[in-house]
């Protein structure tokens, strides 16, 4: 319990979390605005004009807060690598020399922070979608679908934060860890999806889309996504595997 309280206090005693929260909210707002105003006027799409009439598309606007998940990944990475960068890991392990409870506390703390990020970003996308869609001809926002998105964002963002912590404990160099994570999210994952279709559903991004009910990207329905349940289980699987590797290596490592 002490370790958990210390992890929360670590986050609350620097300004990082607030900045990242602000950025994530701005990013979510941008996503909603693009999906409401820009994508439906796209000349690239044959049926762009009808997009707002498609219930799944409208639900995806609410679910577009999924894209803010990258900020949750970042907060996990910085939280973990920061311990090595500033050598506060020494104080952490001096206070709790048994390391597995520390890693578990970190995972729980960041999962909670991720969930809070998720709820706030969901509120922003739902609120902004409701406001901007008003006055336009559009399919209704279906409450039960939005509720699934809310559940998905809580689970998905919690897991993304844990993934960030795991990546950070595997790659201790903060800059390297951030670059590798961002390259994966913005380059490798989209490329794999584009060229090897079936991978989409099995990558973390696809699993997050499945669990969040985010079925439209770039104005086109994503094909072959897993069911929400399967996506959730896959995300949990990613966290367990990566977390296990990370904690095994962290448990043995000399802190010099």
């Amino acid at each position, binding site marked *: 319990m002490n*370790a958990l309280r*210390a992890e929360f206090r670590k986050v609350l005693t620097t300004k990082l979390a607030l900045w990242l929260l602000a950025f994530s909210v701005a990013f979510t707002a941008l996503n909603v605005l693009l999906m409401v105003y820009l994508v439906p006027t796209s000349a690239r799409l044959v049926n762009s004009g009808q997009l707002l009439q498609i219930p799944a598309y409208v639900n995806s606007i609410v679910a577009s807060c999924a894209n803010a998940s990258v900020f949750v990944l970042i907060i996990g990475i910085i939280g973990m690598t920061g311990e090595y960068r*500033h050598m506060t890991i020494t104080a952490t*392990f001096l206070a*709790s020399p048994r390391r597995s409870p520390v890693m578990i506390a970190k995972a729980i703390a960041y999962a909670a922070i991720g969930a809070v990020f998720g709820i706030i970003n969901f509120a922003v996308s739902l609120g902004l979608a409701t406001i901007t869609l008003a006055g336009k001809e559009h399919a209704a926002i279906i409450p039960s679908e939005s509720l699934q998105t809310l559940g998905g964002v809580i689970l998905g963002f919690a897991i993304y934060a844990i993934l960030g912590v795991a990546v950070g404990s595997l790659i201790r160099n903060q800059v390297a860890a951030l670059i590798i994570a961002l390259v994966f999210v913005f380059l490798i994952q989209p490329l794999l999806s584009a060229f090897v279709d079936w991978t989409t559903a099995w990558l973390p991004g696809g699993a997050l889309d499945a669990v969040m009910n985010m079925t439209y990207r770039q104005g086109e329905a994503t094909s072959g996504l897993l069911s929400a349940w399967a996506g959730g289980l896959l995300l949990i699987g990613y966290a367990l595997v990566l977390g296990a590797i990370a904690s095994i290596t962290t448990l043995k490592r000399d802190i*010099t």
Partner: protein
Amino acid sequence: MTGNSIALEVRSLTKVFGRGEGVRAVSDLSFRVEPGRVTGFLGPNGSGKTTTLRCLLGLVTPTSGETLVGGRPYRELSHPLNVVGAALEASGFHPGRTARGHLSVVAASAGIPRSRVTEVLELVGLAEAGHRKVGGYSLGMRQRLSLATALLGDPAVLILDEPANGLDPEGIAWLRNFLRSLAAEGRTVLVSSHVLSEVQLTVDDVVIIRKGELVSYGSLDALSSGMTARVIVRSPDAIRFAESIGMHEAASVTTDQTGALLVSGMSAAEIGALAFAQNVMLHELRTEEHDLEAVFLELTSSEGGAA
């Protein structure tokens, strides 16, 4: 301070970093650190001091041997910060955190009440600067914050790595008195340094290592008495008197550039008595000052043999 006095023990500690041959940082090192005394852990940079301390604190896993705090490995202590306070380097802080924030994080991790944060800040003289971000601290202030962190749990044992680095002379004097008073309360204090003169006035015992191996271990007094003290003699009749001294079996005499005699194996009193008996006039008769730093340098220089 909670609990009784606690000794530290290093038993046949060996640490090799890396695979295969690797880098041998510490080699078959054994020593004990007693409560109620300040022990200096000395050696040049890179001699394995920090590695040894990190092994003691469970941060580094020994290749072989063990380190014990009150008879138990650090990792088995149930409330470690209430037993051992450690200040390992002046860099274990997040620059964006205030001193108060840093201490409150550590306090939370050990279940120590927040009121203690204010106490330790006052103890180390940082009460005024506690709300400022550590990123703007001087090296001396960081050292004080390190010490404050170590003191949070009111521990029976203090392990400080190079605590005098970056302190001004006033700060060093303050640190000396502070450590002496902690030892006087019955605490175990282990202080590392690469300069003996820095801690010479503070420590009771010394553990000296070189290239990861023990060179000298015992009380500071024993270290200085182990030296062969020489007596410096000046006399207008030096050449004749040197012959008389040479007659004594234990004594050996050399002459320095200024013509003074350097006598070892005889005390100043014995030489004075001899001069009196032989009616030799003396201009100077004194025992050479103990130069501990010279001994330390000799013990730890790469050419110097193990004592």
